[in-house]
């Protein structure tokens, strides 16, 4: 019996892999990243190594919510110039477009006003509730401003009973206390 042949080189190389790169002083060539050969452990460790985004504090959250709330509150007023221009352009005559404009000009603010609390519900927290009042007030004011624009438009269309002629039908002629019958 002859002794077993020496293991082939590939077996040796397999059993004794080359020394880890980290143990060498030779730096990696530029542009080379070790990730391709990196083991899972290394990656896992690198992940756990970056806990930079810690959960925000409640104060921070409140500030943020307030900011958002302000944005919501001021949203109606941002549309106003556009609406005003369109209303001005659509004219004061009674026609499909201007009637739709007027309906929208009344519907949106009114719906907004009715949904004031819902609009700010998500921003509500014990910390913000106090300062949210001012925001809501602003929101209401802005909606009323939008409503005023609608009223201005309706007035421009002559639909508001603001003049004496609108009340003429309710005025009556004076009752004469004496009557004279002509007999010619």
């Amino acid at each position: 019996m002859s002794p077993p042949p020496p293991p082939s080189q590939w077996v040796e190389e397999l059993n004794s892999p080359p020394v880890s790169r980290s143990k060498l002083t030779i730096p990696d060539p530029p542009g080379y990243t070790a990730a391709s050969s990196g083991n899972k452990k290394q990656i896992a460790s690198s992940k756990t190594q970056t806990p930079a985004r810690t959960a925000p504090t409640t104060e921070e959250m409140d500030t943020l919510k307030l900011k958002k709330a302000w944005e919501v509150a001021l949203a109606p007023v941002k549309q106003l110039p556009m609406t005003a221009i369109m209303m001005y352009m659509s004219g004061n005559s009674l026609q499909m477009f201007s009637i739709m404009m007027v309906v929208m000009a009344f519907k949106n603010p009114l719906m907004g006003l009715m949904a004031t609390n819902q609009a700010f519900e998500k921003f509500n927290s014990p910390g913000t509730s106090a300062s949210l009042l001012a925001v809501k007030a602003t929101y209401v004011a802005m909606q009323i401003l939008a409503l005023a624009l609608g009223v201005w438009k309706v007035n421009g269309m002559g639909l508001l009973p603001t003049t004496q002629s609108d009340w003429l039908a309710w005025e009556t002629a004076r009752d004469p206390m004496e009557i004279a019958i002509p007999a010619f």
Partner: protein
Amino acid sequence: MRLPINLLFLTLSILPSTLAVFVDEAYIVDYHHELLGLSQPHTSFFHRPRKNEKASLLYTLSDLGVLGAVNPGLGKVVWRQLLAGDDAVSEPGFLRPIEGEDAVVSAIGSRVDAWDAMSGRATWGNVFEGVVKDLEVMETAAGSEGAKAVLALFDEGKPVLRKLKGGSGDVAWEYAGVSGDIALQVSTNVQNVFLVSTYYGSKAGFTLRVTILDPVTGKKSSEYTLSTKGEIESLEDVVFVGANSAAPIIAWADQGYKNLRVNVLGKSGAIQSLPLTESDGKLTEVTVHAPHLVQSQAHFLVHSRSALSNRADVYHVDLANGSVKKAYELPKVPGRGSISISSQDANVYFTRLSDDEVAVYSSVSHGVLGRWPLNFEAQRGSFVHSTTEVVQKGTDTYAVRSAVVTTEQDWVLIRNGAEAWARPEGLSGAVAAAFADLPESESLVKNLEVEAESNALSAYIHRVNRHVADLQYLPNYLQDLPRRFLSSILPGEIIAQKAGVLVPDSFGFNKVVIVATQRGRLYGLDAGNHGSIVWSWTAFPQENGKKWDVKGIFVESSKGLATIRAADGEYTVVKTTTGERIETMPPGSGPTIRSTAIVDSPSGKWMLTIGVNGNPEDVPSERVPKGHLVVKGDAGEVKGLKFMPRGSQSSPVITWTFTPPTDQVITNVVSRPAHDPVASIGRVLGDRTVLYKYLNPNVVLVTAISNEKSTATFYLLDTISGDILYSATHEGVDTKQPIASALTENWFSYSLWADIISTSATLPSSKGYQIIVSEMYESDVANDRGPLESTANSSSLEPSDIPNAELALPHVITASFLVPEAISHMSVSATRQGITTRQLLCTLESSGAIIGIPRTILDPRRPVGRDPTPAEQEEGIFRYHPVIEFDPKMLITHKREVIGIKDIIASPAVLESTSLIFAYGIDIFGTRVAPSAAFDILGKGFNKLSLVGTVAALWAGVVILAPMVRRKQINGRWMTS
């Protein structure tokens, strides 16, 4: 699956080809009685308008001074001329044909005119002094050339006879008779002209003077007198003085109609007595008929009428010695009868109309040439007089047609005994009219009341019974259904309304118009059915020349009664729908009255009469009128009256009197109409502010003219306090021209002729007819109700709490416009609630039309000298233009010529948009106007047929398509699975 293209085409083809054409309602909603007036016996004749024309026309000059030619076949007016001016003539007119020429000659008042017989155009005319008493065409000797001359006799304090040249009307010669004589008649035979005049001697009564003149030179050749021995008491007693004939005669009857005295003109002193035979009692009327042609035989007929019957004698004149001898007599027949004469060359025919036949006699012998049974409606009354044309058709056959005036004042043409046409000439010369609503059917209301009051079971039984009883109307209803359906669908009024049925309609167009005429007749016209005559009767027959002076018509719609009061105290109460007389009091049964007023009292509405001095009588306290009265006084002043209790009676007390300055005379006073509702008390301006209207119901507009200064002044008076609210004076006014005025709502208008001379301070000069419109407002500032502000009541006596405060005066805005012609009368349309704008209705006498001028044109707020601002444009006012052209589209009479319109009355319909208009005078005209367009009724342009067709086509489409679709759906489900 295809669309049914055919169906689509069918639907489209139903639609009218043109939708843009405005369908006018002219001649459909309006009606016109084109009248002449009652034809007069001596001025009516048949005459050929052209010498070689076969057909003749029927000419007449009526009692109203209307000259007209009527087509005898159809009864339609060919042409008319109104000869009488404003002062309707009391003198009769004269009309003669010029035989052998294409002309007729008329004389009325002081003028003589010749007219083309065919077209009615004037060929010549001439005006003289004095009044025409007679007119004759001068027959010339055969063979002479030139147009026939005309002899006209005038009364100028003495008889003046003028010969007018034919063709020009110039005077050829003139003969003045003895001063003081009364002109009677002119006659001519070929050789001589006879002027008959009369003078009054205290002992011998009237003496007739016959002057014989030379026809060529006009020189007097001889003269003789005829003593009537007192047999003529007045000029009306001269029965007949003959016209142009071979032997003209003069005839009069003695007292009591015993004898007829006849003188053949030219035979001096030979008065022949012809005995008059009585028939069934005393004679009441004797007429003489003699031919008017020179070539006709000298025969004449004496027609004697008694109350029950009539008879006639025919006499022949012997031309040689002038003796008159009786030829034959026509036997007595019952009834009034009528005899007329017609001549054809030498032949003279007498046509006798009796109650049951028409007979034609020759003047030569008593043989009847033709006889026809008379088919004549009894409701037309008996004959008054007739005009006849006899045509010889063969040797023995004759045709005869007579135009007859009946006692019911119809003008009827009887052709060979049968009635061809009838013209309601009695309707002419209307003096008053009023609208009357048709009384609603009250039975349903009563039934419903009964059912409401009784208990449930009996009410149920009552209702079932009522419905069963209503079943009797079902066949009629079903019969009527197709007509109603068609009439609502088909365009126009193809399906005629049932005549003679007065049914109130839902639109309120069906009303009765009660018309009173100057001859004392009453008519009921159906305004909803083209003004057809529903009923008529003679209420108070008037003597010749006298006009019935109706002072007021009071309609009680709830009772369906109308009271007509006239000046002499007579009155009658009639049912508006049937004309049935309820009560009649003859003249003199009450005091003479100046005017009437409908007043409200605790015991209901009644008609108060105002005496001639301008004061009403005392009235019992339960009939005291609520409120004051405004009357015209004796001297033309305007007075305010109030009733003061005095015991059980109340007597009038004058509260104020308005007298204009001494040089001015009040000519007219107008007040706001009795029905004058105002929908809006203010006027909205462009900027939505309000000008408040001055709405005082107690105002009158007084017109006062000054002839010396040529001014017209208009005063607006408050009728409670008598204060002048506003006045305006116009200078350079022709006071002889018509001045018309109207007052309504918060505005008034008047028209006049003015010649304004320019000065530096005033307006630029203008000359012509003007219409001036003024609006009254409470304040000149918008949104201001004036000093009274918003107080609920107003009093003219105590305007405010401050003692002796002055009346709030209106702010008046005025504009004047030039109009092309004179406006003789003004009126305003009336609607139910006054929402519709009012239309000013003006009578244009010279063009024979009525114009409806819209308020927008007559707006005094129209900007002068500049274009309107956008706000003003929004208000609907446009730039002022001083001239208003009378656009023919504004004429509510369209191309119809209405003459002699005295007044226009307006009445509201149930539809707010519509006002019923009725104009009366010589003609009768009625229409409906919609001043703001007919906004509440579908117009004639609305095609109901296409609407129904479309709906039917859609329905048919659905019916056809539905099964197809269903099958397709079912098939689809089965075949895919």
